């Protein structure tokens, strides 16, 4: 028999076994062979949380900032920018494929710094993207099409769960370098250097610029310097993912230090930026993708190819969020206000870290929870095991991802005590 299409297979199965005959309804559908996809591990947590009726429930899953009342926070600078934009009564004409020019410029400046030689020389190209995910995907697609080196992208172990499928769907392959040390809940510097030193030349290495997701563990600057040197020696292509500029330390320049250092050291990097967290523009999908090239001429060629890639995905990007972000970045009072608000968000998280550790001590926990304070950014890798996480969810309605990651942004002064209680209960 010739190779059958799936509905023919199901039809044949139906004749073999009567019980499979019930599939005949499916057999008349094109989609009988479509498997049920597993729920997204991260976004799936929020959906499970919503269904829970426990009044004490806590959503520590997705990394969206919450204020101390546990409510979503719309930044004042965003509201002000929206009012300014509304008053302008702009039209809704298509943006260029590469997005809003004033946004792209400001986005690059934010990451690279005003004094950047790269920006002065015009040897980089920045395109507006659908937030960080869209940026990574465009970059991954670009690599798949144009990177002459190995197909392998090296991710830190662990990395954001969506990195792997993004690169895979783009046609790249994934490998890993050691990063997180479970015994210290800190950075496995030695392991990282060892693994990086073995990466074949011209491979792509992905680095989290700051506030590593999911661990919250960042290299110190001396460590970054060594990594930069080693990566240069290995002739690797660097892809930075910066989704938390401003969110990690509260200071945008400090959080971009690694990116800027690598560029200064001569790495012509790829860079993904997201404004989902640092401007609270999650659902507006604001991001940028930058490639630092050899010179302006190369940047033009690269830009033309990025457009060719983008056009068959979504033609051109959405205006609203980019317009808001550009207005904030380019209006001095709003920019200052924004910096204050980002600082405020970062500080609240730092405070929650301190309170959680204090709470755990108070509960009488014998474990060392210093890593909760040492780690940086929205996430904390608690070190809890999957069974403990399951208990936290089932017994205490504390929702988090199975890897033990909690979003500190979901912690408030009102629930930090309960969280300490719950964590202590499952870990004592």
């Amino acid at each position: 028999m010739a190779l059958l299409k799936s509905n023919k297979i199901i039809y044949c199965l139906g004749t073999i076994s009567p019980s499979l005959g019930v599939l005949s309804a499916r057999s008349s559908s094109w989609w009988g062979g479509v498997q049920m996809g597993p729920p997204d591990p991260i976004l799936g947590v929020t959906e499970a949380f919503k269904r829970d009726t426990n009044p004490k429930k806590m959503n520590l899953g997705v990394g969206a900032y919450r204020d101390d009342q546990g409510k979503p926070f719309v930044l004042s600078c965003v509201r002000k920018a929206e009012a300014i934009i509304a008053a302008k009564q702009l039209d809704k004409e298509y943006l260029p494929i590469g997005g809003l020019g004033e946004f792209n410029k400001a986005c690059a400046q934010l990451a690279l710094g005003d004094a950047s030689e790269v920006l002065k020389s015009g040897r980089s190209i920045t395109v507006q993207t659908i937030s960080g995910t869209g940026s990574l995907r465009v970059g991954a697609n670009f690599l798949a099409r144009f990177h002459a080196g190995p197909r392998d992208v090296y991710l830190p172990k662990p990395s954001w769960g969506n990195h792997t499928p993004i690169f895979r769907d783009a046609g790249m392959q994934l490998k890993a370098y050691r990063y997180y040390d479970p015994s210290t809940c800190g950075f496995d510097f030695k392991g990282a250097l060892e693994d990086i030193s073995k990466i074949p030349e011209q491979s792509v290495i992905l680095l989290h610029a700051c506030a590593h997701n999911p661990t919250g563990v960042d290299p110190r600057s001396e460590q970054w310097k060594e990594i930069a040197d080693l990566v240069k020696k290995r002739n690797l292509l660097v892809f930075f993912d910066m989704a938390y500029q401003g969110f990690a330390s509260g200071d945008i320049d400090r959080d971009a230090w690694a990116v800027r250092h690598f560029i200064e050291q001569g790495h012509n990097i790829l860079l993904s930026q997201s404004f989902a967290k640092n401007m609270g523009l999650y659902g507006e999908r604001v991001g940028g993708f930058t490639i630092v090239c050899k010179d302006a001429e190369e940047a033009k060629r690269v830009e033309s190819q990025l457009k060719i890639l983008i056009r068959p995905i979504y033609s051109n990007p959405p205006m609203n969020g980019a317009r808001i972000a550009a207005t904030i970045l380019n209006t001095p009072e709003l920019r200052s206000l924004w910096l204050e608000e980002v600082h405020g968000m970062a500080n609240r998280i730092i405070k929650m870290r301190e309170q959680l550790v204090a709470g755990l001590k108070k509960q009488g926990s014998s474990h060392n929870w210093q890593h909760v304070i040492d780690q940086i950014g929205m996430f904390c890798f608690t070190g809890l095991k999957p069974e403990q996480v399951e208990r936290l969810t089932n017994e205490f309605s504390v929702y988090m991802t199975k890897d033990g990651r909690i979003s500190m942004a979901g912690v408030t002064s009102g629930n930090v005590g309960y969280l300490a209680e719950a964590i202590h209960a499952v870990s004592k």
Partner: protein
Amino acid sequence: MSLFSDVPQAPPVAVFKLTADFREDSHPQKVNLGVGAYRTDDCQPWVLPVVKKVERLIVEDESLNHEYLPILGLPEFRSAASKVALGDDSPAIKENRVGGVQALGGTGALRVGAEFLRRWYNGVNNTATPVYVSAPTWENHNGVFTDAGFKDIRPYHYWDAAKRGLDLAGFLDDLEKAPEYSVFVLHACAHNPTGTDPTQEEWKQIAEVMKRRKLFVFFDSAYQGFASGSLEKDAWAIRFFVSEGFELFVAQSFSKNFGLYNERVGNLTVVAKDNENLTRILSQMEKIVRTTWSNPPSQGARIVSKTLNSAELFDEWYGNVKTMADRVLLMRDQLKAKLQALGTPGTWDHITQQIGMFSFTGLTPTQVEYMIKEKHVYLMASGRINMCGLTTKNIDYVAQSIHEAVTKVQ
């Protein structure tokens, strides 16, 4: 030595290059009949009054925030959008076998649908499954399906240049000869670029062959309401195919009929055999969306959702849509009349027979070049003009220019 030294300069996307050239042209009578966006009689972009109203409501609503939408998008938007395509009384919707995936414009909806088909249609891995697009078609159709992984994109006969109409015989013949299970991209109405749609009788013939040959129906619906001024009329083909029992996809765009071009509002409507199939399909759509854009932008979807879900705003919107459709119909009438009055060689009935934003004039590439270089009237090399670029103020000049092009140049 750069890793990117060998990256070739890509050619610009033609339709955007045309607009760029137009912008640089300083000729006082220049006319842009290129990119497909609506213009008022003053040749200005038009933000629909209902959109302005709803945007104000959104900005003033302090209870709204900027949180992530679900992966598949805003639920109220998805259901309202699918209802617009299939009709309020759609049996398929009542039977709970219709779902929507909010996407980045019509392009995004096509891409998500294409990615899904490549992975899951008719057994897994459909890179070799033929995908048929009309000859000619919107130029991005090719790119979307190619980049989604399909290796065999083929044309199906559509435009008959000699008679300036639909090549139905050629179309039906291609349907008969296509390998079973091939994917066909159909324009629901207001075919881009020709403006030539099958009649209801012709659609029936097309559907009969497609059903018999087990061909997959993928509608591209970018102009519902815009074409005739009637949502129902412009969705007739879609609804007919659904009533014939097809499982199908509809890539919907709200760029034109809501004038929301830059907010990227689209919806992939999925009509499945039953709810169980639909559920599994949507679960796999989520995975595709997650690695492409994670979740879609909220602003545009909110505007459309608020409008479609309020009886009053819906009526206001319908009125705005009719305003646009009527102006286009007026320009069609006037252009044909003026060409006939000038005695321009050839027949010009196709201008009023065609429908929607575009007209395939029948001008040759050299005549088009003449139009652009000598008359500063910008149109696509295919001879496609955007009727929206015509106004009562420039229509005489354009008619005169066409007359000259046809009489002076081959």
